[in-house]
């Protein structure tokens, strides 16, 4: 039997999952290289959305140009973030510091600090309310396919995640930057010994990861009709869960797990209540960690 409402729920779940996936891609990339959680990724996501919104309200360019603006601000934010929150903790070069857990935790906290400062600043400047978005830019135009209803934003998000995932894989496998990112991810000291400029590679990682995050923020903001300073928090938590479930450093794994989370939420809403959606998502996390301590797609040593 073909239940159209259930299929519609799967579509809903897929689109929720893709939003988490968009965020998880950049998040996992940065984690893979530094082995440190970048808590400010949600704020980069927010910066992308606000930069795009400012471009829309000031210049009203076509959507493609708005994405370019978000991309530029994302790159800038990534560069600045690395400079402020991550680089200061890499000035100790000895082996003990490189392996020190304290340094890692300090980096984690400094990214959290940047995240809080940026969010509070945005609240001071723009107010914590949701911003009004000009209607013609919203990605909510209904598209009916048979009995199912879609929004144009869902197709854009779907296309964007495929492009991002594919583009990133190509970048990592076939370009010099990508190869050095993988080398540094695999063994930062080894990479340095063979002459890879690890500093520059790390900056490149942040710029790439943050660009992806900023574009995701803009598109999701326009799709949900909600751009506000704390918008990065909730999807950030889900992206983090997806990353852990996927095995911390597998980008493909994080995407698959993000889709599982989204589906779980939609199906839980369908059969129980929306309030239980988060519980089921976290239950999946616990089950994964109990039975697959290294995540569903972790396992091997190779990262990124």
């Amino acid at each position, binding site marked *: 039997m073909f239940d159209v*409402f259930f299929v*519609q*729920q799967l579509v*809903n*779940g897929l*689109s*929720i999952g893709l*939003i988490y996936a968009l965020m998880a891609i950049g998040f996992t990339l940065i984690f893979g290289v530094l082995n440190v959680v970048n808590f400010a990724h949600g704020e980069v996501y927010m910066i992308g959305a606000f930069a795009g919104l400012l471009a829309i309200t000031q210049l009203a360019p076509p959507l493609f140009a708005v994405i370019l603006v978000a991309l530029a601000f994302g790159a800038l934010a990534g560069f600045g973030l690395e400079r402020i929150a991550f680089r200061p903790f890499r000035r100790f070069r000895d082996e003990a510091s490189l392996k020190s857990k304290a340094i890692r935790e300090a980096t984690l906290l400094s990214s959290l600090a940047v995240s809080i400062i940026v969010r509070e600043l945005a609240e001071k400047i723009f107010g914590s*309310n*949701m911003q*009004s*978005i000009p*209607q013609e830019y*919203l990605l*909510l*135009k*209904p598209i*009916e396919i048979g009995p199912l*209803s879609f*929004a144009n934003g869902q197709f854009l998000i779907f296309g964007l995640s495929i492009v991002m995932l594919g583009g990133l894989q190509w970048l990592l496998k076939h370009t010099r930057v990508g190869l050095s990112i993988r080398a540094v991810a695999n063994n930062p000291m080894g990479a340095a010994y063979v002459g890879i400029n690890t500093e520059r590679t790390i900056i490149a990682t942040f710029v790439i990861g943050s660009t992806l995050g900023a574009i995701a923020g803009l598109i999701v903001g326009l799709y*949900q*009709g*909600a751009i*506000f300073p704390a918008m990065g928090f*909730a999807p950030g938590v889900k992206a983090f869960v997806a990353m852990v479930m996927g095995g911390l450093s597998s980008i493909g794994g994080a995407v698959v797990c993000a889709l599982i989370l989204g589906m779980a*939420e*939609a199906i839980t*809403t*369908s059969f129980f*209540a*929306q*309030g239980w*959606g*988060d519980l089921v998502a976290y239950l999946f996390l616990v089950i994964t960690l109990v039975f697959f301590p290294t995540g569903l797609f972790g396992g091997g040593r190779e990262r990124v």
Partner: protein
Amino acid sequence: MMRFKQCKTLLTTVCLVALSCGASAQNKTVAIGYQAPLSGENAQYGTVFRNSATLAVDEFNKSGRLPGVTIQLKFEDSKSDAKEGVNIARKFSDDASIVGVIGDFNSTVSMAAGQVYAQTKVPQLSQTASHPDYVKISEYQFRNINTQAYEGPLIAKWAFDSGAKKVAVIAIQNDWGQSAAGNFVQGFKALGGTVTDTEFFNPGTRDFRSILTKMARSQPDAIFVGAFYEDGSAFLQQKVQMGLKQPVFATSSLYEKKLLELAGPAANGVYLTSTFVVESTEPHVAAFVKNYEARYNGKPQQFAAQAYDATNIMLNAIVAAGGANATRAKVRDALAATKDFPGVTGTTSFDPATREPIKLLSKLQVQDGKFVSVK
């Protein structure tokens, strides 16, 4: 030179003292305490309350309704903190010139301060505290806001009378949302209607499509929304995108200009209630909107109107309690006797037994991006 300056200061002081003595000789001052969050997280509300209350008291003093008596407002900043609220309540209670207190903003602080006012027998009128237990503290607590116990059944009847026999309910998962949904459902079932789904969403939810799909399956005649305007506008937009055509009935929490901006055309057709309608053409409402805008640069919203009425209800009670001779006990009795007070948020009476306000709600509909009164 120095001496001259000192002389001048002294002279000014003497003059001032003489003036104020003279004034008090023919003029008695009666004070109203106003506690509200003037700083911190909820400062935007406290500021609006201060604006409205100052406006109301200035108008009152100018009107000469109580010759020889000047009403003074004493503000204290509770920072939306229950501890601060209690300290202020003690301070106000010790101030013999205060015959009545307005505030606080939220139910938690109002109730904490209310415990003190109940003991010291100071009448307290909150413009916004809607928790069911607030007026149960003692016979000294009053409020100028409808609770969901009143609003829910009213909207239920409205929906039912408009022809909806099956409704789906969506509300935010918190105390307020639960009471909004609960009261509506109870009211709707009492009329003989059926409720197909009651869905609560977690605060912060941005995607309502799963809930909408669930609602689409059960095919209700109408949808009741108990949410604030940000979640409400996301819900309305996604409802349009998902192709659900059912009319939406909502609580007064959606009556906010921002809803029209955020939801755009998706807001059209929504039915909602409100006690205060800024677009109203009634002369006393229009005058309030005009005076408020002239003085504070910006149209008053629901909360400003709520505070304006609360202040005027208190002023009325002071007049009824004898003006210059008003005591706290007399003001309390006068407050309790408030009947058909014609405010900007509608006509208000206090139920003699429960002290709950009975306020008439206006019915509104969003049409072409504007709130329009409907019957």
